[in-house]
């Protein structure tokens, strides 16, 4: 029924077409731009933090005027630093990378790459976006409530987050944080259910699971583990709210003593929250990184002009990673007071993840072998993602290992490690994706020259910052410190903070180049051809930019896997998925 009419009728009004649109492409772009906006916010927060770490206690009069509470008379207060740190983590993890990769690319690409006209539930999809907008506003707005934004870390460990007198940010900021997270989880659930249903039920004829591009595979697996892991966190967040405002003690033991007062709570324990948080928190990092790996793997064949190495194995490895990711959350808690026997189980399980991850890494590098490498901007960022995945992944061997984690837990080693992985790999893949699919979105190309400059500034700066943090962590530098001037054993690292901060400012500044390139190219970019990269995946078989309903009267039919490049006996070095076997041999 609806299919044909949807293909033909575009919504008539501006509001229905661009604001309250049910078109997956518009929603995807809305998500992407929201993520970019939040990234600037999250990056701005960290720029302030790096100013404090580079020049501790310096007076910035102009900042004092912007943040009259947090930076009274221009000097940053510790509570403001903690709020910045907490909100930087929360925003970047949930509102930038999740939003950009799953919300942005997921929405934009899933129907296009599996040959559907839209998501299974377009209205729900729209609702998912319009739930995330208030979530963003609540998170950002929490800086202006009494006590400032939440400051107990993105992990929100109680009692710090549960007792309202424990910290200024634990007054209303923490409540708004929980509210924002609940909205986020609601939005994620709507989106995730939609993605999984769409990928199961809406694939076009011939698009078997094993013919899906890895982007779709990773979106599918990431949505699935997100859907399985977020609900328990929602339960825990509800209970945390009750602990804060209802007088319950789910996460609060007896004998708590705050501000010369004995609290009446009894029976709970903070360990319980840690377990539930990381039960989501660990799968969440795979929710973030898997789509990034998918995009990276997907773009490689386009710019090497040869098929991907080890597609089938990669899919199996993704399944293995997803399954393992659900049972290793305890490696965030080795020294938390958790049972040491459980710790041993978690250590062995965690290190097992290195095996499928290595296979994926090897497949990436091996995919280059024998190809004809070309380096437009997306490919540069793909290489960047591979480098970060390799270097960052190795850090996991130290941290997943319970014994070395005794020394490295909660030091900058951890900060360096997870930034390379869920910050670096994802950022690189998102940039690669934006440069690559920009023509599909807007019918124009982004500037190559600005793109190249953007890469050559972003990649080395990012690498330098987070590599340095690994070494700072080895030196025993604890994370979440407002200043490092109180400890003698950290004095010799004082200079490195300045270097890291300078690189961070460079990194932050370079992103404005990207923003300029993006928004300029929307209007002024060179017009793109229908298939500008000469790629084989299904999305390029629709006109560029794709119209409402994606394809004309007939949905495309798929005859082969998505990586048929340089097929012997075919005309040209790219054989699109829609090419029947009678025209070019099917090789996979």
């Amino acid at each position: 029924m609806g299919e044909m009419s949807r293909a033909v009728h575009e919504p008539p009004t501006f509001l229905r077409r661009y604001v309250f649109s049910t078109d997956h492409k518009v929603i995807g772009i809305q998500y992407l731009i929201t993520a970019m906006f939040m990234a600037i916010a999250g990056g701005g927060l960290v720029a302030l933090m790096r100013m404090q770490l580079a020049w501790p206690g310096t007076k910035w009069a102009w900042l004092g005027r912007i943040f009259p509470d947090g930076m009274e008379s221009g000097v940053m207060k510790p509570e403001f630093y903690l709020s910045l740190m907490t909100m930087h983590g929360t925003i970047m993890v949930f509102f930038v990378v999740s939003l950009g990769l799953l919300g942005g690319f997921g929405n934009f690409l899933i129907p296009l790459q599996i040959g559907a006209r839209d998501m299974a539930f377009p209205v729900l999809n729209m609702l998912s976006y319009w739930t995330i907008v208030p979530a963003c506003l609540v998170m950002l707005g929490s800086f202006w409530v009494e006590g400032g934004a939440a400051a107990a870390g993105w992990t929100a460990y109680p009692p710090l987050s549960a007792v309202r007198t424990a910290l200024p940010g634990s007054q209303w900021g923490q409540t708004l944080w929980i509210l924002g997270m609940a909205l986020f989880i609601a939005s994620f659930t709507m989106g995730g259910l939609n993605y999984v249903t769409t990928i199961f039920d809406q694939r076009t004829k011939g698009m078997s699971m094993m013919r899906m591009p890895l982007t779709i595979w990773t979106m599918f697996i990431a949505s699935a583990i997100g859907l399985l892991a977020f609900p328990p966190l929602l339960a825990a967040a509800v209970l945390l709210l009750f602990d804060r405002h209802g007088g319950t003690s789910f996460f609060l033991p007896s004998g708590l003593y705050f501000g010369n007062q004995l609290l009446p709570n009894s029976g709970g324990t903070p360990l319980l929250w840690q377990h539930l948080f990381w039960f989501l928190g660990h799968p969440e990092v795979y929710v973030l990184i898997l789509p990034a790996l998918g995009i990276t793997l997907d773009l490689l064949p386009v710019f090497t002009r040869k098929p991907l190495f080890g597609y089938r194995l990669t899919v199996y490895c993704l399944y293995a990673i997803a399954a393992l990711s659900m049972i290793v959350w305890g490696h965030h808690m080795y020294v938390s007071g958790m049972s040491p026997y459980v710790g041993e189980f978690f250590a062995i399980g965690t290190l097992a993840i290195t095996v499928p991850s290595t296979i994926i890494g090897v497949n990436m590098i091996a995919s280059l072998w024998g190809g004809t490498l070309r380096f437009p901007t997306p490919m540069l960022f793909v290489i960047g993602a591979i480098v970060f995945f390799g270097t960052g992944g190795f850090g996991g061997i130290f941290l997943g290992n319970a014994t070395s984690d005794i020394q490295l837990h909660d030091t900058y080693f951890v900060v360096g490690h997870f930034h390379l992985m869920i910050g670096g790999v994802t950022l690189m893949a998102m940039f690669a994706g934006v440069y690559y699919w920009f023509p599909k979105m807007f019918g124009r190309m982004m500037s190559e020259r600005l793109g190249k400059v953007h890469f050559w500034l972003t990649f080395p700066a990012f690498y330098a910052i987070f590599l340095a943090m690994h070494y700072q962590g080895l030196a025993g530098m604890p994370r979440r410190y407002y200043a490092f001037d109180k400890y003698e054993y950290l004095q010799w690292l004082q200079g490195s903070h300045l270097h890291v901060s300078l690189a961070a400012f460079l990194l932050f500044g370079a992103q404005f180049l990207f923003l300029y390139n993006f928004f300029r190219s929307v209007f002024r970019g060179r017009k793109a051809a229908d298939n500008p990269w000469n790629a084989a995946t299904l999305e390029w078989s629709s006109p560029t930019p794709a119209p409402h309903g994606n394809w004309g009267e007939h949905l495309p039919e798929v005859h082969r896997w998505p990586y048929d490049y340089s097929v012997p006996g075919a005309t040209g070095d790219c054989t699109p998925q829609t090419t029947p076997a009678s025209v070019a041999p099917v090789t996979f």
Partner: protein
Amino acid sequence: MEASTARRVGSSLAIVIWLLALGVVALGLRRWMPPLASEHGAGIDAMIRFSMSAVGSLILIGHCVLGYFLWRFSRQDKISFRLAGHHLERRWSLVAALLMAAIAEGGVLTLGLPVWAKVYDTEAPSNALPIEVTTEQFAWNVRYAGPDGVFGRTSPKLITLDNPLGVDAQDPAGKDDVIDLNVIRAEVNRAVKIRLRSKDVLHSFFLPNLRVKQDSVPGMTIEFWFVPNKTGTFELACAELCGLGHYEMRGLLVVLTTEEFQKWLQEKKNG
């Protein structure tokens, strides 16, 4: 035109990636960890050193290979190799998988978990010095059990400004206890058995030089032990976000010789 650009970009990428690998290794060869001052710390250091060397080599190899591929195949105008057979794919993956399993799982099973088990799953020696550390925002309350080796009873209900631990004056076992703030004194080469508690939020007892880290959790009394084997003053840091003063919640571990320690204990009791 396109080919020559590719060659230029590919070569620059390769060179940058090689330089990065050299940088990683050069930095990794420097000494970063604070000087070691505990017995079990040697095991942790061995674990970290093993991972450092294994990972360092892998990073070097990986970056070299990636750089070489970029260098080599950016100079190629025709595909020289198309689709890998399933066997080839499986063989390469198997090599990588086995290597990684050997390094990661092998490392943790042979070097890691034995140390872990010793730290967390063995009783302290009988002559261990029992010390209670009670964390609060933002200080370390230290209590020694005294000659009887038994800590006096405490109750949160008895906490006042003068009695920060809520020590029960009725309990005779508490009469010889010694209470101190932010400074822990211990004897060299004698095990210290810490009883870690918290009054308010989570903190973490982190002695960088002694490779000791343990969160203190309100509602739980967590015991662990270690043997300081160098005299000197070592810094104690809080490694779990605990509030505004997290960054300045500094304590000290002063490791004394036996004579010095006994002398200090005596003085403290008399004073």
